[in-house]
């Protein structure tokens, strides 16, 4: 399957944020993540217009074109991020909570969201990097097991196992957390 040529602006509008967020979760720095995503889109332009060949590592995906493009973008962004890490191998600064800005919420709502989100993200930090990554791909970006397998190069079974173990660990952490440390927001859900 070749890469369909979609409107690049629409594609950027749709995916720049998810991709930058994902790349940043790997490389740490916003600027580096943006560079990676810029190169991802440029690569998309070249490949979809036939200037470059489709990367051989890309597994063919018979789902609809836009989903295919989505996992293609995540794959390339991931590879770019890992390349970046290899090139600039150094301690990865984790994004500080203060760098995180809520997308669309009023000030009060934003505060509650941010507190809850920070709390949950701290729990996620207890998981292994690959558990965290599949959780992000699954729940932040709505990728299916198959798509996550395409992006990460893992087998579908492996993805299912990582998610299963990651979620189980997370539930244990939630159960162990002192009740008054859990944001009110979440208490009802548990």
């Amino acid at each position, binding site marked *: 399957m070749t890469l369909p040529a979609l409107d690049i602006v629409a594609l950027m509008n749709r995916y720049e944020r998810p991709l930058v967020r994902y790349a940043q979760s790997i490389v740490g720095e916003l600027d580096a993540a943006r560079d990676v995503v*810029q190169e991802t889109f440029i690569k998309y332009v070249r490949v979809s217009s036939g200037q470059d060949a489709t990367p051989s590592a890309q597994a063919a995906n018979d789902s609809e074109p836009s989903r295919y493009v989505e996992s293609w973008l995540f794959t390339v962004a991931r590879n770019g991020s890992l390349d970046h890490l290899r090139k600039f191998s150094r301690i990865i600064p984790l994004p500080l909570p203060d760098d995180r800005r809520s997308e669309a919420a009023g000030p009060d709502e934003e505060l509650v969201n941010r507190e809850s989100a920070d709390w949950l993200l701290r729990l996620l930090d207890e998981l292994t990097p690959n558990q965290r990554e599949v959780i992000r791909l699954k729940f932040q970006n709505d990728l299916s097991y198959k798509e996550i397998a395409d992006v990460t190069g893992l087998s579908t079974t492996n993805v299912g196992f990582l998610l299963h173990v990651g979620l189980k660990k997370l539930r244990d952490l939630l159960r162990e957390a002192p009740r008054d440390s859990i944001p009110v927001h979440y208490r009802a859900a548990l």
Partner: protein
Amino acid sequence: MNANDPMLTAYALDELDPRERAQIEQLLRENPQAADEADDVRKVASMLNNTLRLEPAAGLSEEHREAVLRAAGVLHMKPAPQAVIEGPSWWRSWQFAATAAACMVFGFGAYAIFDALTESRPKYASEQPSKPGAMMIGVPTDDADTRYHQPGTDTAMSHPREIVGKPAQPYTASTDQRPPAGKLTVFSPAIDSELKPPPSLPEFPVVPEPATVVSTEKSPQIITPMGVKRFPGQQPLVQPTYGFSRTNAAPAAAPKSGSGSVSIAGAGLFQSTKERPVSTFPLPTSTASYAEVTAALRRKQLPPPESVRVDELVNFFTFDYALPVSGKPAALDLEVGICPWDAGHRLLRIGIRAKAGGSSQVMAEDVAMSVEFNPAAVASYCLIGYEGQTGAANGRSQTKLIAGGTATALYELIPAVSSETHLKSSTGLLTVKLNYVAPGSSSRRTIEASASDTSAGWLKTSDDFRWAASVATFGMLLRSESANDLANWKQLSQLFRNSSGGPRHEERTRFAAYVEKTIELVSARAASGGRK
């Protein structure tokens, strides 16, 4: 089946094929503990989904985006000598605007003359693909009701502003009756005192690339009797001539009389509700025009008219439309208010908001949007934007609603002459239908909403309405022959006030600066002798 089986997690996350799912469901019936376990997985999944989706995400910087657009050839940079227009300072340009405006005719109502005669179009279409018509903007500065004035029932005449200048020519359906070629300019003195230089402008870096030279040839003037308009106290509305394009849509896009209303064939054309009470419109697929327009402005160039696509500009922005009620994938948010470029017309804003869900989840498939007008209240309508496009023809038709998305469509409405009584009895103006197939289902469903006209003045409309209307006016003005007319731009600048939507809409603040930049460039061009 035990609680430690990854299959159980896959089941809870809906990742199994139907056969596996049936197997697991059978096992769960025998094992309530495992069923509880699956529920727990779903709870954590939903918590993660709701939280991670909201995790702040920075996008690309403008520089990064531009690098991609250049690679894609979307930023068309023609090699040409640097032709940067050095505009006067902000304050000077406003002074200039005020002086120029003082020489102009004072008026309050809006006046619009649009576009080419149908017969003329093929002749010019090849020469000037985006030949714009003249356009004048009236700024509705307050809540004075300027609509639907019947002789003898006029209330706006008591308003301190009065209309001097030429009244609109009442046109008949005769196509060879042309309006005077000269332009009428609208200027409202009441807003003059509000004109101040903007407090601070963001930096517009000059892109170190060869600049695009905006087409400089003066286009042949083609004006048609499309401007059907009414001023307070004037004669009742004359029925417009239908089928003229105000934007030079390709002749092929002109609808054939009697054919069913299809897709966006009617974009840019007024359609009679008696002939076609139902209009359909596409979901937006691109916002490319926004990038093109703002990139041109950053290079200190006025964007070429053909790069300005109104629907794409409007849909670049996000709006705070009402969320769907539970169980529905989307909600319709309708509003009818004053039309900024023609005070005798009304503007319908159709907002669509898909339910929040997973970030790329499809909420509805095979979506078809339609509007059914009440001919007793609306004489004719015109879909704003989509000029010369046919959804299917360019392969860009979008029929899915993605979670969390918003979409906006605008229609210009000409009220029926007899509409006043109907409006007062609050008869519905129109009904909008969103017909869709829920993912995984085979039956079609419909979400419906009706709108009536509350005759709200400009400032009584919502921020979202004012913003969408202002952006549309900006785009239409750039495409129009009146793009050089400072007074219009000055009016436009007023429109953009009071519709910023608050701190959640930074992109609006940014765009307002682009509007000011546009005005600066228009001023500079006017000072240097117009388009040449």
